[in-house]
């Protein structure tokens, strides 16, 4: 599978104004339509280790798998979408690696990481996430959060204990209810979304959305959409100007053109030639 020219990707990551380490980790591959962002947690440098393992395992494994075939269609045996299966399997693999490292090495005990992955193919994307790293979408003038955090705060909002306005005042930010590498098995939330030419997707760690309001993020994306790199730097800078109390990472993905999967004859020919 090769999506070259279909996606433009820009990213920026920064330790912020307070922390000495950057425990966030990002990776992307525009040709494979793959972006990964992880926000690690754990003492010493264990957070970096966990997030680094997550992004490395997922991107390298998927790159190899996608080299062979595109994530199209439905798997015959399980009846599950191939893209979902690919993501689920690689996330499980990353989870096992982190979990085992945390179990076997005392200095890594208790490390874990949040994760958000997007895989673009066939004019859509599959998003998998765990924890409070987010994916947003800008389509036209409409800027909206796509993923829903796995956090205590989100659960409180859902159950009506507090309103989203009150949530900004809560002392219980940053308590995630799901993370990679903490338990032997983790369930990622996986959904499909259609993409359109001109869409801009933002993946970010909580260091951005805790420091910068959604309105301001949306404004930056709209205003600076013609220069993604600058936009990514601006978002990180705004988080730092507002205090930068956590690591800040952003990945921006713009859909430049359609990228429908090869179908019918062409596809058969391609498989035949392989």
């Amino acid at each position, binding site marked *: 599978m090769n999506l070259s020219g279909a996606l433009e990707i820009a990213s920026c990551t920064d330790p912020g104004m307070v922390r000495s380490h950057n425990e966030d980790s990002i990776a992307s591959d525009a040709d494979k339509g793959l972006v990964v962002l992880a926000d690690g947690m754990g003492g010493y440098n264990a957070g970096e280790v966990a997030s680094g393992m997550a992004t490395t395992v997922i991107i390298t494994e998927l790159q190899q798998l996608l080299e062979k075939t595109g994530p199209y269609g439905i798997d015959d045996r399980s009846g599950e979408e191939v893209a979902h299966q690919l993501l689920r399997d690689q996330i499980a693999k990353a989870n096992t690696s982190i979990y085992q490292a945390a179990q076997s090495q005392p200095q890594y005990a208790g490390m874990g990481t949040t994760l958000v992955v997007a895989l673009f193919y066939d004019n859509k994307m599959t998003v998998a996430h765990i924890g409070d790293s987010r994916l947003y979408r800008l389509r036209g003038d409409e800027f909206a959060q796509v993923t829903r955090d796995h956090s205590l705060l989100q659960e409180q909002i859902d159950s009506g*204990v507090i309103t989203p306005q009150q949530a900004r005042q809560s*002392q219980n930010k*940053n*308590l995630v209810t799901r993370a990679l590498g903490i338990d032997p098995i983790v369930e990622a939330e996986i959904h499909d979304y259609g993409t359109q030419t001109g869409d801009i997707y933002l993946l970010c760690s909580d260091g951005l959305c805790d420091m910068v309001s959604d309105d301001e993020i949306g*404004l930056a994306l709209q*205003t600076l959409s013609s220069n993604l790199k*600058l936009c990514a730097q601006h978002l990180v800078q705004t988080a730092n100007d*507002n205090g930068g109390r956590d690591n800040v990472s952003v990945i921006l993905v713009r859909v430049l053109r359609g990228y429908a999967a090869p179908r019918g004859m062409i596809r058969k020919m391609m498989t035949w030639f392989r």
Partner: protein
Amino acid sequence: MAKLILSMDGLVLKEINLTKERTTIGRKPHNDIQIDNLAVSGEHAVIVTILEDSFLEDLGSTNGTVVNGQPIKKHFLQNNDMIELGKYKLKYVAEASAGQAQVADFEKTMILRPGASKVAPAGSAQAAPAAPAPASSAKNFGDTAAIQGTAAHGPASKPLAATPQKAAALQLLSGANAGKELDLTKPLTTLGKPGVQVAVITRRPQGFFITHVEGASFPIVNGKSLDAQAHSLNDHDVIDLAGVKMEFFFKT
């Protein structure tokens, strides 16, 4: 840890630490905070504390519960809230318990696991915040920099306003709209023609900055062409962008 200060007619009667998940308030003796007054119902209200957050809920009391002058059913308590039950007053104080150091740990992500029981080896992870959560315990996978996992309070927990003190504006010096003024009130203001040349002026705490966004040529400030870096604007700088001259100035 948050606490309540019970008082009547300005006289402090008692201080109650909110250590329990549920702290009940009422006239009957089995309540955690017993207020023996006929204006208070037998089971009047309850405060549910989840880690650092406390919620007050009226339990259908006869005379109701008032917070800061407003009758409430359910309320998310904020520092210095005044709860009134008849003649009695309860002040909610959420104080930063471990001093300034904890501010640094404020944004640290932690995981909350139902029934988490494993104890990490000493020296690699530290204990959860002091207040136990209902049927679950939070584990702070924080560093051992002797920082307790309690969150910061008060103004520190709100993002600072990213606004410089002075207001500024642009005045166009040439072109069809010469003489026009443009207030720079937004965090980002774009200038120029999309597809030809665009620059953006960002409003930051340190001041105003101009940055090139798109186009082959870069903006010119005071006769000097910029590079890709952001450029800090000074009072009465003259910007030349896509053939239009404009002056940047601070408003007094």
